[in-house]
């Protein structure tokens, strides 16, 4: 996968990340009677990020199910419903809350196919908000998708661009295995234009979002836009940065990562997770394993500082990867000759 753009030029329309997600849900609900949505406050409240606002009226309480605050039970119910022939979309309010259903995700959803010797598949989709930047402190701000990317049996999606917000859900619902979709909370209000006929996108492979020859910035989710902004900054100094959007954290598209590093010889990995044991560590290792000879400098990493995220704005900003820290890491990578 290198581009999510439709092949023929189509009329563009203004939209937001949230609207793109809403369109994806509506399409799925209208197109397949087996699809239903459940989670905390998805119905009457309209979803904590207003993704499902109005759906209860449109689709009714059987298919838009408000759940009790019982993450383990409703994610497990999603697994059971998927095994029973339905195509559930389960919304978990935020990744920190998903730790309450980690047993079901890890010990059941990810393992049933294997434990049953391939007799059963779990076509479950779990969506959740992730990420920081809104001063929500240490229990609502973390980026734990890298943890989930550790687990065989799961597919981990991180839509960043509008096309992926629009297209990944439908593809995930067609996938026979459990898929987790991480929506960075700072992206819901992101605006832009999208083809009017935008639809499903592949859920394998990374995408090169900006071409460049001097170094590679590898990012996903909201960090993609910080990486792109850093590339703009670097361009002012005559440095052409290539920006890779990972899109899918598991299975990781190693080939696209190695390809860009072989081209530029220098890489900065931007990851909103903490550095220790992080996805950025995995990417760095894969670059070392697969493109060692092409490297002109050690791989740089820009991660969240190892602190539970603080409330105070200036401290939160200081903890997170920022355009300036990405630019600084890029300059450091470029200093090696």
């Amino acid at each position, binding site marked *: 996968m290198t581009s999510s753009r439709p092949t023929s030029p189509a009329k563009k329309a203004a939209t937001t990340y949230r609207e793109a997600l809403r369109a994806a849900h509506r399409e799925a609900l209208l197109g397949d009677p087996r699809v239903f949505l459940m989670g905390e406050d998805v119905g009457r409240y309209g979803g904590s990020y207003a993704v499902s606002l109005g759906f209860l009226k449109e689709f009714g309480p059987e298919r838009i199910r408000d759940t009790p605050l019982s993450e383990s*039970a409703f994610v497990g*119910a999603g697994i*059971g419903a998927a*095994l029973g022939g339905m195509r559930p979309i389960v919304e978990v309010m935020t990744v920190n809350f998903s730790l309450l259903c980690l*047993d079901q995700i890890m010990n*059941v959803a990810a393992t049933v196919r294997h434990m049953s*010797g391939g007799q059963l598949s779990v076509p479950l989709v779990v969506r959740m908000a992730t990420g920081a930047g809104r001063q929500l402190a240490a229990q609502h701000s973390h980026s734990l998708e890298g943890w989930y990317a550790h687990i065989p049996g799961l597919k981990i999606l991180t839509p960043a661009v509008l096309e992926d917000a629009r297209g990944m859900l439908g593809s995930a619902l067609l996938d026979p295995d459990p898929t987790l979709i991480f929506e960075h909370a700072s992206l819901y209000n992101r605006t832009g234009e999208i083809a009017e006929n935008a639809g499903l996108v592949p859920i394998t492979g990374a995408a090169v979002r900006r071409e460049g020859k001097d170094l590679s910035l590898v990012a996903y989710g909201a960090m993609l836009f910080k990486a792109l902004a850093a590339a703009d900054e670097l361009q002012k100094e005559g440095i052409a940065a290539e920006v890779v959007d990972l899109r899918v954290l598991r299975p990781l598209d190693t080939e696209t990562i190695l390809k860009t590093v072989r081209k530029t010889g220098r890489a900065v990995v931007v990851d909103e997770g903490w550095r220790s044991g992080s996805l950025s560590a995995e990417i760095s290792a894969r670059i070392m394993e697969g493109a060692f000879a092409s490297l002109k400098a050690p791989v740089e990493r820009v991660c969240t500082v190892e602190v539970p995220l603080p409330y105070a704005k200036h401290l939160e900003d200081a903890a997170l990867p920022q355009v300036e820290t990405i630019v600084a890491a890029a300059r450091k990578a470029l200093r090696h000759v």
Partner: protein
Amino acid sequence: MRGRASCLEIFRQMTRIRRFEERCAELYTESKIRGFLHLYIGEEAVASAIIPQLRPEDAIVATYREHGHILVRGTPMDAVMAEMFGKIEGCSKGRGGSMHLYDAGRRFYGGNAIVGGGLPLSTGLALADRMQGRKNVTACFFGEGAMAEGEFHESMNLAALWELPVLFLCENNLYAMGTRIDRSEAEVDLLLKARSYHVEAATVDGMDPLAVAEAAEKAIRVVREEARPYFLECRTYRFRAHSMFDPDLYRDKKEIEEWKKKDPLPAFETFLKMQGWLDEAASAAMKKKIDAEIEASVKYAEEGTLEPVEDLIRDVVTPHITG
């Protein structure tokens, strides 16, 4: 009161489980079976009296002590024994072992080895039935130890709130591994817990197959016909230790001996003979047939195939269907 055929079948299934597991324990000491092995010996009346009353389209969710359940469900003993041996002919192709026996065709959704972990799954299977208008029952077996887990409470609440047709079957053997119920539960009346969620609940002597069968018949009828959850506590006892690694230091030997006096196998056999439904010759013939089935399964497992290591990562994700 149940008829002759039904009672003889319950007895046959109890005997199959007992002898199968006794043989498994021997095979364990011979290192033919490894990993964890949790024996159901003493508790056979529960699975044997309940599962035959389920329909093929009903679903079963079980725990890591599930050899008996899958045998009664009808999965061939050969496939179960081969699984214990880690062979590809096993019911989970050797990937699961004793604790993760599966049979998708018989809607047997596994042994779950996380205490309480199967309960949320059972609500989802029942939800799928409800949403698709099927009058199926999902039978979810778990031990009383699971009732201290949050997943029990979350699942009971959800099942009651959404009127999900789940039959919650608590196999109360009094011990959560080594911890007796009164040392882990502030409230030992388990029915109160179920009723606090407005789930109809009953308790039955799990050492009495006829009582279990009768209680289960009612419970299944309520779940199927009224499409709502039901909680049935079966009071039972395991005669063996928790697993093969357990020296059983936490139970009074006298207590174990007292419970063994309630062993459902000899008691039910005596009952069947008193009814004139079974005589010594028929009993011996039945046991001989079961032993032959067991030995055939051991031979089948011994002669089974080890999966090629090249296939190690198979069945982690579903292969893409092309064309």
